[in-house]
């Protein structure tokens, strides 16, 4: 297993290098250091202040190693990321580690309940439609799932803000408050939207898994032994469908830390997702590369963790 983990990690390092290179190329193809400085300092900033800003932030150096092998932005970019020296934000000079630390709490307060609620809603619902397979409940369930999947997230957000926040006045339209008494009030609407927008795909996926498991020999045997349908679904089908469910859930865990981009941006939640959105809008390369780097690291670690977790739920799985 150790060799397997090492091999996967080495692949992962290659992927991270590639991601960082791609980000660097894409960013500096459309943005010049002058654009970053101008964005940070404003339109009225005189040229000498722009130049001083570039010197202070290291953007006075050439981009590529062939322009200056010893001192260039590309090598600096790799050095900083690989040593976890994230530095200061280009937008406001605040330490990026502090920004990330301040965003983790709000992000997790949204994404963890979202994941748990999503599972709690999707699995029972998919068990229900699989339980009532070939009935109108199943057909209606599938229809609603396809409908839910077809609607854009933005429409859910705007629709929920209008209907639930403005017309029905159940919850605040947007905002965030870390006060524990106020927090649920602000999270209600993004959670409803998050669950609604994700439940269609999840139910369809889990339903397929459950139906596939329902047609297996061990289910037929259980039925022949007189086990009830409910017992079959919950004890036999659900347990044997754990690998795909686990894959889905474990893969989602890294993204809990990177936040929910759209939900955070539109509901005004100051989490890590909105840090990324803000960094893109502000030409803040330092913050953007940090978020991309952390995101790619978490994704790779999540993939490895998923593979390893198969062994926990299915002893037949061997790592070679």
């Amino acid at each position, binding site marked *: 297993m150790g060799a397997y983990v090492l091999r996967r990690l080495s692949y992962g390092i290659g992927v991270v290098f590639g991601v960082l290179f791609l980000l660097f190329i894409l960013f500096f193809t459309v943005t*010049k250091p*002058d654009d970053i400085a*101008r964005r*940070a*300092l*404003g339109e*009225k*900033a005189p*040229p*000498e*202040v722009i130049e*001083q*800003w570039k010197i202070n932030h290291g953007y006075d150096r050439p981009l590529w190693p062939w322009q200056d092998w010893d001192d260039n932005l590309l090598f600096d970019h790799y050095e900083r990321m690989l040593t976890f020296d994230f530095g200061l934000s280009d*937008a*406001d*000079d*605040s*330490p990026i580690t502090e*920004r990330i630390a*301040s965003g983790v709490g709000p992000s997790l307060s949204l994404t963890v*309940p979202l994941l748990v609620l999503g599972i*709690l*809603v999707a699995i*029972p619902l998919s*068990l*229900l439609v699989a339980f*009532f397979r070939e*009935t*109108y*409940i199943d057909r*209606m369930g599938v229809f609603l799932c396809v409908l839910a999947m077809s609607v854009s997230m933005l429409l859910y957000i*705007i629709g929920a*803000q209008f209907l639930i*926040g*403005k*017309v*029905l*006045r*159940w*919850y*605040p*339209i*947007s*905002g965030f408050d870390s*006060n524990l*008494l*106020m927090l*649920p*009030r602000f999270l209600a609407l993004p959670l409803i939207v998050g669950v609604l927008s994700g439940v269609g795909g999840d139910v369809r996926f889990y339903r397929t898994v459950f139906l596939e498991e329902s047609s297996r020999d061990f289910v037929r045997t259980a039925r022949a032994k007189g086990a*009830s*349908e*409910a*017992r079959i679904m*919950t004890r036999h089908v659900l347990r044997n469908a754990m690998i795909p469910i686990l894959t889905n859930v474990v893969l989602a865990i890294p993204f809990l830390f990177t936040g929910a981009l759209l939900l955070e*941006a*539109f509901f*005004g939640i*100051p989490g890590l997702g*909105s840090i990324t959105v*803000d960094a893109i809008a502000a030409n803040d390369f330092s913050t953007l590369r940090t978020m991309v780097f952390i995101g790619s690291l978490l994704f790779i670690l999540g993939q490895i963790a998923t593979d390893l977790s198969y062994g926990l739920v299915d002893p037949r799985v061997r790592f070679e």
Partner: protein
Amino acid sequence: MRARSEAEGAGGRVGLLSLVIVCFVMSAFPSGCSNNPYPPTREGEKVLYSSFVDAPRTLDPARAYNTRAHAITGAVYDTLLKYHFLKRPLELIPGLAVSLPEKTELPDGRVRYRFELRRDLLFADDACFGLDRPGQRTREVVAADIAFQLARIADAEVGSPVIEPFSNIDGFQEFSRALTARREADPGFAARPVHEQYAELGGIPGVRTPSSHVLDVILHRPYPQIRYWFAMEFSTPVPWEAVEYYDGRGGRPRFDDHPVGTGPYVLSEYSKRSRYVLERSKNWYGVRHPEWKAPAATYPSEGEEEDRLAGRLDYAGRTLPFIDRVEVRREKESIPRFNKFLQGYYDASGIIKESFDKVVQEDALSPEMKARGIALEKAVSPDVFYIGFNFDDPVVGRAGGERSRKLRQAMSRVIDVEEFTRVFNNGRGVPAQSPIPPGIYGYDPDYENPARRVDLERAKQLMVEAGYPGGIDPETGEALRLTFDSADTSSAGLTKVQFYVSAWKRLGIDVRVEATNYNQFLEKLRNGAHQVFESGWVADYPDPENFLFLLWSQMGKSKFGGPNATNFSNARFDELFVSMKTRENGPRRMAEIREMLRILEHERPWIELFHREEYSLYHGWVRNVKPMGISMPTYQYRDLDPVLRAQRRREWNEPIVWPAWVLLGAAVLVVLPGIRTYLKERQ
């Protein structure tokens, strides 16, 4: 029987699971259904609720130079001079200074402004004052604190964007250069606290403190506009202790994020990504010394007739401030922000484009808005937007002589700004007749620029006189081709530019649009590689000099790197500008301005477009609202009625719960028959 019981068991488990989910969801929301984003405990307090889109980059008063930052720095930092809240055009009044500065013309041609600081002014309470006196929370403001801040502006490492106007101070640039050179030569010096570095160099020669409460600012040439810079936070007193203490180390914030000032409010909470809170400062001189009746700490008793009619003079003579706390929350999206305003959760708002027709009808508030007690305030921004011609260009510039002049005049006569603002800006915007916007000395509401009167026939005639009949360039035999440079690459921006292009097409001119990003656009202007372009200018201070200098030859972009992107150069205009610049307001200054405008009518370096018009909405419980035009918060003048606000919020936000029961009922109705059918089948 067994099958039935198992099926019932299954149904029961499903039901149990549903119940668990419902309980989970319900327990997650102990505060119950309410769209109120604020804790109920604050209902009766005088808290002003507002919003911001993005936090400012810095709150350092030497560097903060935008409206977002001024919303905080303007409340936290006080200045020697202030603007009268009600009088228009804006008028300077004493702030921290006892009176307006005393001006003395020195024999060597230099000019001295003497400010006398009020006694017993205190900084807001802060831990930084314990730096050299443990336990101390504040100290008295002295003239040296202003001298320190002016030295910070000169310090290249601070990166202040306003070095240029302060360079009129005697020895300002020399001090700046000496500081940089000494730091490079002596690392030991560079490592010392900045206030010690400034002191060792003797400070700026033109900034003197003859006594602890007197500040002399000596200019090496006349520049009366310097007074306006002393009404801006750039020149606020800054304690050296704050700059040294808030260095971002040891868990302390940076000075950029932790202002320590002398203003009516203190920044008690600052989270750039969610909210900030301003609370009334107990150390502000208006609070500590109401008996002074200081002009900037007392509600004005003079104003305009419209102020009397609007009840803005009802508070005359009362001590400021009226509001205890300002809570500003981050709202990035405009639609939720506007909806929260309509729900009563924000006290003021702009009008979003999507709802403009619902809110404003026939240039007044809609009946629906009036019924909610909402008031509309309109204010023309002290800015100007224009289309410029590069005078270094052979086709549209000075080299073409009369021919180019006629071409510019023709192009000027076909741009219909009223139509433009109607199409693109809901009619918001005052057509500009000259560079000077309303509210600035020199603006004449009756003045109509003949070159801006839309007249297609006259424009066509001018094209003939210019040698381009029907827009045909005789050299090529084809339509005259010009290039329009734009710094807006968005589709909305390009649609706007297309409006101008279509107008010029009616003259037969073929205008090609080159849209680039802002830096590339600036690069083109710097290199003179532009022909026709669009730009704008927002006032730093309310003086015509701050607009007419945009056409002064010494501000030419190509030669001097200044903001005159047209590179317009006219000897008479320059002569008048230099004279007008240093003259006090009065008939002679007005006459000079009029002559300058006549030159512009004829020469047409610009096609003046519009001055922006801001529409703001306020709830009926908010009092004393009068936009200042320039970037300056007026929280200390505002008042509100929290009881009325709480009442309205309750009326407007009663939750509608019946759809929840309908949804629940529908869910039961859908699932129940299925369960029944299944159970029957199992039996």
